[in-house]
């Protein structure tokens, strides 16, 4: 079974999956390996990274030197197709006109969703991250714990390939021996910060990213993932053999034609298709879940974007993985006699407790990095090092005025120039001619930047609802966002800014660039989660610890919508681990005839 059109769908499937990103990709992979017949509805077009990735184009090869435009918000060669902060014909609205209360929503409409261009940062949540309320009395505990998810973190890491090291730091879990791929060498500015941060007692360690620093062990991993299933082992092994290791060049945000990093389109979907158990319908925009008279999901109603017609697909189980915001929208739009407010929304909780990461950044210039002998720092197409949150103990002792942690991501490498002026007027002091070229060369590689990625605590002011008036071009009601940071986040951002200033100054540098607003707008970090709270009780949540909605037991949410908290760790690895876990549950329940 392959990529098909709506007229080619089967009369009924075991499972219909909405969305093909991290959550949908992992779900399709897990279910098809177990022999379930699946259909995947994807709102965007089909996309083949092997033939559509402009990996080596120089800025001079593409319009406007690859700078962002309203058509391609992260530049021409960015792997996002038909997406960005704004999608033509598919608006979203704001409850407030105040700039600081606006929510920015990044969507991609393409096979593989945002996994084609994400940053590949793949950090595990730690044990505390599943039980935050037990620790500090704020927000919500998850009904599941680290031990429930740990086996799935390991499986996902083995399948997709994640580099990094095990450092044994608090709430920063190790992976089992042999799971992580070798970490890449540190770059000049990363090693420099590592040395100086030691003086501040701050650990700078190898980051974990979903990039193959060597080929996956295709002879052994499949047998560990799927013992006693030679057919599936062969499919998974063959797919792993098609992936080349990183060749230490190009920006991962453009995507990877050699399949060295994780994209749903290069890692999850090819083996899922190879089982023969998956049909993918691109250009299929799901509108609502179809509910049977028995109160169970019967399939999905969608718009075939190639014709504009409404189509239906029938399935015994429905999985929503359209990204947390779109999944919320689907639930709210799935109105019926049973559920006049939308599925799962009897208690009014759908759309509530949306969280993003706290983002703020400080940049500086460090003289010791000037005039370094030219050397290649492309590396693994993104950061090699980071700083995990290091002040759990201080927080416990009440020494900080915010309750949760942040990690630090860096930039400041001898990255690909072009599309921007490498020598600011401030540093250039009016230079032009040969003098300018000399000064630009001197300062190139001496700018560093530090970025906070911190945990937001869920609050009553950050939520999404259906806009009572505005609809998209197919007449489907759109989301209206509400956003307010609390002092928790503002205090965290202020702490981060102070810390980053200390980094730059300890290295002998000067702060040069600091965002005017200390904290970025909601959504800007593109780590939005929540809106369909997972909980232990039906009264107080939308789904249970298996990502299964309380209202409709054959309906599952397989993206970040169920997250009750948003640890500083970027969400995607956890989305995938939970999707695999939910998939296993679906398989087991289906066998028992429970769904």
């Amino acid at each position, binding site marked *: 079974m392959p990529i098909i059109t709506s007229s080619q769908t089967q009369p009924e499937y075991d499972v219909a999956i909405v969305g093909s990103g991290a959550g949908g990709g992992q779900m399709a992979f897990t279910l098809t390996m177990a022999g379930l017949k699946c259909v995947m509805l994807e709102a965007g077009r089909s996309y083949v990274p092997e033939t559509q990735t402009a990996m080596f184009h120089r800025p001079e090869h593409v319009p406007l*030197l690859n700078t962002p435009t309203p058509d391609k918000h992260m530049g021409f060669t960015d792997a996002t197709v038909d997406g960005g902060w704004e999608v033509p014909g598919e608006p979203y*609205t704001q409850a407030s006109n105040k700039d600081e209360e606006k929510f920015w929503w990044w969507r991609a409409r393409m096979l593989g969703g945002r996994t084609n261009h994400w940053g590949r940062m793949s950090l595990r949540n730690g044990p505390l991250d599943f039980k935050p309320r037990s620790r500090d009395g704020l927000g919500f505990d998850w009904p599941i714990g680290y031990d429930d998810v740990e086996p799935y973190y390991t499986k996902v890491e083995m399948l997709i390939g994640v580099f990094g090291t095990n450092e044994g730091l608090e709430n920063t879990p190790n992976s089992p021996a042999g799971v992580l791929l070798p970490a890449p060498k540190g770059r000049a500015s990363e*090693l420099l910060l590592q040395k100086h941060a030691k003086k501040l007692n701050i650990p700078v360690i190898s980051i974990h990213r979903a990039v193959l620093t060597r080929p996956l062990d295709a002879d052994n991993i499949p047998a560990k993932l799927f013992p006693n299933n030679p057919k599936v082992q062969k499919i998974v092994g063959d797919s792993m053999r098609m992936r080349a290791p990183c060749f230490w060049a190009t920006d991962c945000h453009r995507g990877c034609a050699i399949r060295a990093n994780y994209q749903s389109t290069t890692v999850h979907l090819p083996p899922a298709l190879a089982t023969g158990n998956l049909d993918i319908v691109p250009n299929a925009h799901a509108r609502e879940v179809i509910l049977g008279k028995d109160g169970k999901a019967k399939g999905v*109603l969608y718009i075939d974007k190639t014709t504009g017609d409404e189509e239906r697909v029938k399935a015994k189980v429905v999985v929503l993985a359209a990204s947390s915001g779109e999944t919320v929208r689907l639930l709210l739009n799935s109105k019926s006699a049973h559920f006049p407010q939308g599925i799962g929304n009897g208690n009014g909780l759908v759309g509530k407790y949306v969280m993003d990461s706290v983002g703020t950044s400080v940049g500086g210039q460090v003289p010791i990095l000037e005039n370094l002998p030219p*050397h290649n720092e492309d590396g693994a197409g993104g950061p090699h090092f980071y700083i995990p949150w290091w002040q759990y103990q201080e927080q416990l002792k009440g020494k900080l005025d915010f309750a949760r942690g942040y990690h630090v991501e860096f930039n400041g490498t001898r990255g690909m120039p072009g*599309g921007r002026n490498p020598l600011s007027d401030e540093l250039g002091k*009016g*230079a032009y*001619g040969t003098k300018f070229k000399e000064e*630009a060369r001197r300062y190139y590689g001496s700018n560093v930047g530090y970025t906070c990625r911190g945990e937001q605590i869920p609050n009553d002011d950050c939520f999404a609802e259906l806009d009572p008036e505005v609809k998209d071009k197919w007449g489907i009601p759109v989301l209206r966002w509400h956003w307010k940071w609390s002092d928790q986040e503002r205090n965290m951002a202020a702490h981060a800014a102070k810390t980053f200033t200390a980094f730059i100054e300890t290295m002998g540098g000067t702060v040069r660039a600091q965002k005017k607003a200390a904290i970025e707008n909601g959504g800007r970090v593109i780590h939005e989660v929540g809106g369909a709270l997972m909980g232990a009780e039906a009264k107080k949540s939308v789904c249970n610890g298996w990502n299964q909605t309380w209202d409709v037991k054959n309906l599952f949410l397989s993206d970040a919508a169920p997250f009750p908290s948003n640890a500083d760790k970027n969400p995607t690895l956890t989305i995938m681990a939970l999707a695999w876990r939910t998939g296993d549950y679906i398989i087991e329940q289906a066998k028992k005839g429970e769904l």
Partner: protein
Amino acid sequence: MTEGETTALRLDRRQVLKWFAATAASTQLSEFGFAAAVPVVTAKGYGTDPELMKIYKPGDFWPLTFTAEQRKTVVALADVMFPEDHLGPAASTLRVPDYMDEWISAPYPIQQKDRAALLPGLQWIEGEAKKRFNADFASLSEAQKHALCDDICGAAPVKAELKKGGAFFSKFRSLAASAYYGTEAGWKALGYVGNISLPTFDGPPPEVLAKLGVEQTVK
């Protein structure tokens, strides 16, 4: 909806709040206060799903703007800013003027704003060349070009009556640099040696580690 029900497809093309779409600035006064009218760009952008694998050149997506005279000024000024020297070729041989033309001809807000600044700026510098040396900028001697540029480059405080010229110079330099360093020769000039596939990544070489007083901590 419940199984068996139907929904009529309602098309609603209501204007919605587009709070982040900046308005095109094609007819506004330029940001530096030049009051010249600028020809309006009506072309379309490259869309949300352009063919990515192609190698493009300026003019492929929208028509270019510079007249022969404007082009002459741009070539001359870009080559003063990025001359041929021990750090590489002159800007014009790297097609920097073409990229600048592509830039100011693009139908997007940032570029339209730069258009409204650059086109009148070119007129200004020509006027200044006429006034001081009674010649067009491109025909000036190197010394004359430098005399003019030195007054507006920002190395020394720019005189009040030349402030507009100073802002123009800075914008021009920034755009020219963006293009210059987006080329292979520009990379060499800056010391960027990447974008080439390698069998291993070895990190900074020993002389870099020594200069920084650090060790490679990833073995």
